[in-house]
């Protein structure tokens, strides 16, 4: 159950769009009890249960959740692997002594432990992973009772076995193997051997280490926080060598602090541009540590410090100037990183153009790391049609102009009269009807004008004369440089 979207005993479905239709991928137990089944069209299910809630099926999120469970099960054994979308296998060989539990106890402990975290689990112990998985999946207590579907050979083979009247592993086990192999191939022999505990299979543990990581173990646990940054800087230097060799730079650095008592603290920093320099990395970690709400608690001390670079990308080496001087252009990136680490990413923005006709909507704020879009440039040989400076709100002005839509001849602003000597327009911009309930509003006629002193203004008539307003007002919306 995800994000508390529905109570645990509610009927609901997870759906995904397939070939234009919404199909049910999974159902809650309550929905299954209503007679619905996975694979149905949502429309068909709603025909039966009009109010069936449906949520998007997110296999990636499910898998991530499963992996989280896998990691937490590493407490029993390092050999844990996910199986398909819904199961995990623990290789407990040789673990019982260290855990101080036997098979049944581990199984019970695991199920209870998961139940406390809100997961309902079925568990079984057996001599091979396949046998254990099958017993758990089909809820049987002996291997002979398992249905032939446990072989996992595909619907074709299962149906053929059922049509032959062979429905359980027991029935298969009692038959000579050669005729079965002749019909169902080697896959059947192998699957059967795995299931009947005749042949073992190794699992591949889930744990994968990040692609770039360096660590430092301490002979004596380090009981204070102070020297930490020095260790991090040293580790970052090691990481830099790896990054340089690969032509990469880190976008995320992660420090894992392993306490002697088994607790692991993790700190991570992100950067807008790929980083390598240990000094930059340490600066970010310093900001991070200083801004922690809960200060680090070394307890009895750290015995292992690991620095990983889980996220990194290609660095295009900028060509330095030949005379070895810096280009002089101040680099914004380190500043932006520092500002973001200190104030939070949501507090730092930059302006980006927005594709809108109305000038007041034509820009927006975006996170600084996003790729900046170029601002629209006037066509070659064209003057800028929009001013650099906009008044917000536009300034009311008094204007003398011809009706219905002639250009301004003169206008008064802040007690001064301006005589218009040149003008171009109108640029007519209609009201964005979708922005308001009324859906209608005045049209604007914009004019670029130049007064007798050579100053250039951007004026608009608010409303079409006659059809929209009896006496449209005028505004100064901007001045050109």
């Amino acid at each position, binding site marked *: 159950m995800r994000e508390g979207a529905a109570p645990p005993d509610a009927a609901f479905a997870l759906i995904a769009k397939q070939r234009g239709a919404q199909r049910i991928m999974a159902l809650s137990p309550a929905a299954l009890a209503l007679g619905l089944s996975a694979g149905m069209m949502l429309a*068909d299910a709603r025909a*039966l249960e009009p109010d069936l809630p449906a949520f998007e099926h997110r296999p990636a999120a499910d898998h991530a959740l499963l992996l989280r469970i896998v990691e937490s099960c590493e407490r029993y054994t390092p050999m844990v692997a996910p199986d398909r979308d819904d199961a995990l296998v623990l290789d407990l060989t040789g673990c019982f002594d260290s855990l101080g539990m036997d098979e049944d106890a581990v199984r019970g402990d695991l199920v209870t432990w998961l139940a406390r975290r809100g997961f309902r689990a079925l568990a079984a112990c057996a001599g091979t992973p396949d046998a254990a998985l099958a017993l758990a999946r089909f809820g049987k207590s002996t291997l002979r009772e398992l249905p032939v579907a446990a072989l996992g050979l595909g619907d074709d083979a299962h149906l053929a076995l059922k*049509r032959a009247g062979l429905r359980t592993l027991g029935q298969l086990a009692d038959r000579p193997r050669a005729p079965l192999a002749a019909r169902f191939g080697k896959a059947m022999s192998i699957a059967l051997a795995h299931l009947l505990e005749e042949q073992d299979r190794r699992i591949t543990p889930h744990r994968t280490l990040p692609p770039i990581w360096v660590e430092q173990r301490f002979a004596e646990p380090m009981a204070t926080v102070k020297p930490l940054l020095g260790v991090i800087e040293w580790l970052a230097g090691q990481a830099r060598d790896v990054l340089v060799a690969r032509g990469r730079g880190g976008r995320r650095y992660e420090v894992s602090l392993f306490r002697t008592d088994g607790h692991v603290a993790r700190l991570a920093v992100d950067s807008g541009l790929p980083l390598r320099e240990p000094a930059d990395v340490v600066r970010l970690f310093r900001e991070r540590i200083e801004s922690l709400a809960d200060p680090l608690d070394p307890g009895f001390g750290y015995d292992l410090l690991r620095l990983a670079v889980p996220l990194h990308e290609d660095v295009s080496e900028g060509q330095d100037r030949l005379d070895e001087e810096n280009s002089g252009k101040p680099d914004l990136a380190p500043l932006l990183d520092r500002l973001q680490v200190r104030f939070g990413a949501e507090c730092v923005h930059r302006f980006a153009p927005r594709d809108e006709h109305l000038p007041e909507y034509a820009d927006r704020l975006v996170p600084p790391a996003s790729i900046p879009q170029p601002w629209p440039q006037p066509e070659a040989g064209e003057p800028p049609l929009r001013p650099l400076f906009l008044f917000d709100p536009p300034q009311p002005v008094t204007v003398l102009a011809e009706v219905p839509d002639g250009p301004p001849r003169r206008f008064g602003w802040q007690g001064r009269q301006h005589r218009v000597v040149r003008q171009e327009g109108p640029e007519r911009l209609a009201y964005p009807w979708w922005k308001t309930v009324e*859906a209608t509003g005045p049209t604007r006629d914009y004019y670029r004008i130049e007064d007798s002193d050579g100053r250039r203004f951007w004026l608009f008539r608010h409303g079409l004369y006659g059809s929209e307003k009896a006496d449209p007002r005028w505004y100064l919306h901007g001045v050109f440089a």
Partner: protein
Amino acid sequence: MSLETPPYVEFATTTAYSFLRGASTPGEMALRALALGHPGIGIADRNTVSGVARALAALRRFEEEMEAEGVTLPPFRLLVGARLVFADDTPEILAYPTTRYGWGRLTRLLTTGNLRTTKGNCELRLGDLLEFLEDMQLIVATPTSDALLRQLAQAAPGKVWLGAAMLRQGRDARRLAALREQAALAGVPLIAINDALYDGPESRPLHDVMTAIREKTTVQAAGRRLTANAERHLKPAAEMARLFAAAPEAIAATADFMGGIVFKLEDLSYTYPHEPVPYGYTPQGWLEELVWSRASDLHPQGIPEKLTRLLTEELGIIGQQGYAAYFLTVHDIVQWAQIQGILCQGRGSAANSAVCFVLGVTAVDPMKHNLLFSRFISTERKEPPDIDVDFEHERREEVMQYIYSRYGRERAGIAATVIHYRSRSAARDVGKALGLSEDVTARLASTVWGSYASEYDRNRCIEAGLDPDNPTIARVNHFTGTILNFPRHLSQHVGGFVLTQDRLDETVPIHNAAMEKRTFIEWDKDDIDTLGLMKVDILALGMLTCIGKAFAMIETHIGRQYQLSSVPGDEEDHRSNPPHVRAVYEMLQKGDSIGVFQVESRAQMNMLPRLRPERFYDLVIQVAIVRPGPIEGDMVHPYLRRRQKIEDVIYPSPAPPHDRDELRGVLGETLGVPLFQEQAMRLAITAANFSDAEANQLRRAMATFRNVGTIGSLHSKMVNGMVARGYEKDFAERCFQQIKGFGSYGFPESHALAFARLVWVSAYIKHHYPEVFAAALLNSQPMGFYAPAQIVRCAQEHGVEVRTIDANHSEWDCTLEPNPKGALALRLGLRQISGFRENWAEQIKAHRPYTNLEDLARRASLPQRALNLLADADALHSIGLDRREGLWEARRTPTGELPLFAAARARELGEEPHAALPAMPLSEEVAADYQTTRLSLKAHPMSFLRPVFAAEGVLRCTDLAKTRNGKRVKVAGVVLVRQRPGKGNAIFVTLEDEGGIANVVIWARLFETYRRPVMAARLMLVEGLIQHSPEGVIHVMAQSIHDRTPELKRLSEVHEAEPQLSRADEFVRPQHPRNVRVLPRSRDFH
């Protein structure tokens, strides 16, 4: 228009036929230009002329309406062209043909671009234009280089203009000056355009919505892809003059441009193809010759006087209207099909003429049947006659390819169908464009939308959890309503062919269809009507395939020859019908009509015992009466009461001095109740004093009732007209309601007649040759209403022996085999096995007989899949293998061997110890039969479950007849059909058990309580009250419904996972009952 205002004509118009780019229809554009006092308008859509006929039709209609009001319109010219949009960097060019020849150049040009690419696209290059630009005037409408402009000007001296628009984009004045200079430099005149995207400024929001739909974004996010303002509309001449004050010559140029054009759409005079006419004959002369010689062949003893009279009269009208070539063309196609042995039958107003009967186009003999009206061309309509020809559905493609080969692809094309927005798609697109989320648009689309939203629709909206007064929802509703009238794209018509004598691509552009080897023209049937082109509908009908196959089998096995027209029908006086004819009617009267054309649906089956047809015309009525038109018009019950003599036949009468019996002639054959479209029109003429033109308007309004609002004025005109002549208002209203009903589902008598003939022929075969009928039906699948299981069961009830599918006996098709009793048995074909392939069946047939499975696999070179399917369908009995053994063997039989090796080893498989598999119980055999072939000859699934149900007191379906009316009963069976017809007040479910079927009626209010069992059950138990109708139809009026599907699991020996829902649901997603599976396919096996 004041004196000093120079006239202005807009040539840059983009209408709704530039899909999602123009926000007004061509008609709206033309009428707005007329209203603004312009002397004309040019219609030029993007690389298409598909909208031009619409503009013409709208102008004509308006003119007609105005004429009726006594208003004469000022002269107004419709100029037609196209906006050429190129794939290379050529600017957009408005091309207007000046002559008929130029029109042909334009359509050739567009055809060239169309055929170069896939459906819906047109790829033009500058070279194409240079090749086809004779007799065309061009306006360069988008910025271009001086060089290109000069190149164009040289290629078409004096025919090129440079377009300039003043769209209030800020720098208009500067741009106008620049264009003026460019024009002077290139030596071409400047012309004013306003690049109109809609008729008036009020349409800007709609255009924005369309832009957002086209750009697959929302209005909020579309930004500058939307137009900045509402200036792109048709403007009055005075305003255009003011805008172009700096270049008055550009305004004057519009009149020059118009003056250079002499072509008008009406010039597209039509010439019929003259292939069918032999050298030395006129079409009329040849038609007459043909008709009279055929008539003598039919009546060697001399042509009866009545026929002579009819033929003379009809030939006279044909000659007068010049339609002989049309009849000859239809005859040519029909004759070709008949020579190929393809069954066909014509229908439509002209098809029921004596001429068509004599020429073999139709099998309905107008001499035998007293048809209502002179079913013929109406002279006042001045429209070409209309004949649709149905062909066997499996062989129609042959006919179409014949037409292409006979007339050539440049002379024959399929008409287009303009696909309009439907309310669901419109609501979804508009909702998305207005930025509503996916789930809200999905909910929107589930309700009815558009400007006709009634109280009912409001409630539906509220039920769907949406507030109809919410501004956004109201906006969606508004735009949806508008956009419903708009075309969305062009598609090909199902089979309407346009044939010409001259090159068709010089009349109309041709497109590639999505289907291979098909091309279609960009005008639809209304446009073709408007322009007076000839169209023949080449349609596909499954029943003709079935009848064709049945005739062939009867000839092979019984030695009797039939044709559609030679199946014995009834005599002129049905009371003298011979017994073998009466027996067929008796079968129909019992509602025993599974497989019979048109009358096999449950509603038709229930109607048969009530209507009790006893002559041909009763079948015509039977076909027409169970239709939404008569049902919504509440005409069915009055008709039935009168027919059953419960009610007197009275003809509503007008007040004196009008003829009291004036309606007797119109409504006589249908006992005073109007049932057919033709009667509705005739009624309006006779009783409401409509003129022919008005009746014509009414017919058009009926055809397009959903789209056009004109029905309102016709409503009051008709009701008032009838009341004025002394009819009761109530009757008048009822008549009109029925006409409205016809609007959506018009069913004219002329079609009912042709269908009734096929009802008769199929019923005749079913009764006299039930084994042939069943085999032909099964071999023509998919068609008809029922699944193979019901067809087979029905055949068995008619005494036919049905034999199982067997690898040594079955062919692909179902076949007939003599049985020891001297009758014919039906052998099921391999086609019944889901997933089997026809070429496997042929390979099997070629190397028979087989003695073991390996032999079969090797000699018929079958892949393992084929062997598995054969085994699983239990088709290996003749080689000594039952289903279980067969499958066990099949899985190890090697296939796909090289022949060399196959020959080298006679028998490769080693002996195995006997598998000793457990025996398969009969019930599981039946379940597997249903899964593989959807029927079982071994037993009915219910027979195994009977002990369970008997213990609960469940009756057999056959016992219901013996149960008294009103008694409470339980009945159970597999669900064959679920239907929720019409307004959905009741749900009809048909259950089947081992003995028969039960008809269950579930009222809508009960449905809500039992929704899940009603919708999901494949095995259903119903408790309810028995209701016997006087005609012997038995219904169970449900009181409670139980889903007993899990019982089906008892059929297999071990419980399995619950199989998926079978979709017998006509109202979730339309699913045809014939595709219903009682047991779902064994999943993913095949």
